[in-house]
């Protein structure tokens, strides 16, 4: 009986040892990659590895931030064996450009070439509420993200423009909304705290319409939007930390307060639009409040969950009913006619959607 027990113990120990060896060996193959979504990593609190701020952040970013990789201490408790595996351990190559005792140089943090593993959740509705009552700040620092200076550029005199009379359905609503604006320009758009007119032309593309029916091949067109057609979005933590560095939750150490684990994805950085020809800076657009057209944004907790276009077509039709009618009439006459007033050919050649017809 004793022998049987001894053999059993030996077998169990051997099996466990083999399993550990096997696991280590298979994991070793991936030690030059790091992902947050492994079972072991998912159990950890973000702040247990990422320190905020990192000592280098002021030099790198100019403000306290996470600007560096977690230190060795964060990894070594679980990956001790990997640290001493061979002359150039694979695990070192996750952060270090040329691992070696004499070279501690690391890749820039974060590595932009790596796939993203998190999405950012920004509740527009809450932010609209809490900063909703606004007046134009009289002055602001020259490099301020606030719109004290920016809106002065935007104060165009509101030119008159032709507007079709209301006919059916939402047309009346839109007409009334667009014509009933006796204010010459918005005094302050709090959206501009985070979204400013792009200073450089971003990568752009017409939105892909996988479910639509193209009625003709795209015609060649020389149209190219300008930088001013687009608005930018905050990159990094700086804008968020203006209010959320400490005190106001979620604070800088609560990563999950804003970031949600997601499928890995590559950020193309391409701004996709239905209407590439829409110019935010045109005289009759710049004098509107952002939410005059971005109707859904004040009720949106998460952009990813938003149903329908952020800008409902009704807001476009309020001023552009005449152009809409002209182009839908032309389409009725020839299926190959491509709508070009708002759309580039990639979109303008598709079937006209119901939202555009039911005016």
């Amino acid at each position, binding site marked *: 009986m004793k022998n049987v027990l001894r053999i059993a113990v030996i077998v169990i120990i051997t099996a466990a040892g083999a399993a550990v060896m096997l696991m280590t060996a298979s994991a070793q193959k991936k030690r030059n990659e790091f992902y947050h979504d492994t079972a072991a990593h998912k159990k950890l609190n973000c702040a247990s590895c990422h320190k905020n701020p990192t000592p280098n952040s002021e030099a790198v970013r100019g403000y306290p931030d996470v600007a560096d990789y977690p230190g060795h201490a964060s990894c070594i408790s679980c990956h001790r064996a990997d640290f001493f595996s061979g002359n150039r351990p694979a695990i070192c190559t996750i952060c270090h450009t040329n691992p070696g005792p004499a070279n501690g140089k690391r890749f820039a943090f974060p590595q932009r070439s790596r796939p993203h593993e998190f999405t950012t959740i920004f509740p527009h509705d809450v932010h609209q*509420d809490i900063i909703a009552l606004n007046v134009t700040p009289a002055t602001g620092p020259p490099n301020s993200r606030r719109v004290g200076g920016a809106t002065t550029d935007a104060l165009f005199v509101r030119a008159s423009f032709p507007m079709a009379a209301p006919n059916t359905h939402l047309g009346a609503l839109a007409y009334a909304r667009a014509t009933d604006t006796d204010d010459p320009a918005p005094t302050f758009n709090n959206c501009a705290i985070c979204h400013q007119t792009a200073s450089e032309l971003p990568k752009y593309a017409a939105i892909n319409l996988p479910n639509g029916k193209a009625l003709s091949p795209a015609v060649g067109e020389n149209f190219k939007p300008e930088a001013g057609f687009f608005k930018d979005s905050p990159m990094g933590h700086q804008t968020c930390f203006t209010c959320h560095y400490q005190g106001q939750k979620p604070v800088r150490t609560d990563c999950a307060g804003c970031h949600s684990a997601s499928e890995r994805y590559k950020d193309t950085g391409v701004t996709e639009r239905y209407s590439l020809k829409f110019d935010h800076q045109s005289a009759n657009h710049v004098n509107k409040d952002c939410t005059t057209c971005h109707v859904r944004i004040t009720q949106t907790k998460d952009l990813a969950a938003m149903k329908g276009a952020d800008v*409902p077509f009704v807001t476009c039709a309020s001023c552009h009913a005449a152009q809409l009618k002209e182009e839908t009439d032309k389409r009725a006459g020839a299926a190959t006619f491509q709508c070009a007033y708002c759309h580039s050919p990639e979109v303008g050649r598709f079937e006209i959607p119901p939202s555009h017809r039911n005016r």
Partner: protein
Amino acid sequence: MSEIKWLIFREGRRDVSLINSVIMSKFAPLIVILLAVSVQTFGQLGSMEVSGRVKIGTKQEKLTRKRFYLFRGGLEANKALVEKLKAAAPVSRDCFYCTQKASAEFIAWLRAGDCETPYCREITADDAQKVPEFKAAYQKGLTQFKRKPELAQKWLTTNLPAGLRDGFYREQKTMIGGLLGTLKPVQSVMTDSVSVKGIFIDIPLELAGKKTGKFLVSNLLPMEVGDKSFVWACEIEIGAEKPAVLKLTEGKTKACEVIVRPITACAAGVCAAK
């Protein structure tokens, strides 16, 4: 029905397709009618606009960037909510900040921009010198962000006490939570600052054969205009044919409950009455 029972009795469960075909032949028209009714009932969308322009006294007020909520059912269906709105004891902005022991300068700064929180507008370097709370937060920031005075200025609100920072917002959220309980609005929108309108779009209608359905629009939170605060709870018919339009009035109407309260002075001698 008896035919189906007989079939089941005769065939047992062997010939399911035969039974199914009989069921389909008997009930197909009914299914089609039910589908049509359900599409008619639930498939339609409506829209409505609430205008934030309201004449109060002799002045045309603009309620810009104010949130309105849309509820299914009219005044009668939402009687409990309306009663809660009437019974509520909202705390005015000034009173709230009084309880937070805010300085007269801080309250004056909020008033000057019609602000409810210090997030509402830029806190300038001048403000940081004149308003004691801002000054204290700035000094704290200078210690924390050594050699970075611009950061201490820019991130000033992160060093404000919680009550002054977003306390009023949290108070309002708590109030909304108390008013609504388990009731969920269909949508909420905010009026814009140019057309002073809020548009409810793609409202799912449940018309059940009728042309329009009853809804209730309310701001829930009192809007402070001059020396009074206003809560509207207005019934409106919304259909799929054309957009509904709601214009607010100063006084109560058949379709609108208007709860008007004077904005009272707070802690006399500490904070001035509005």
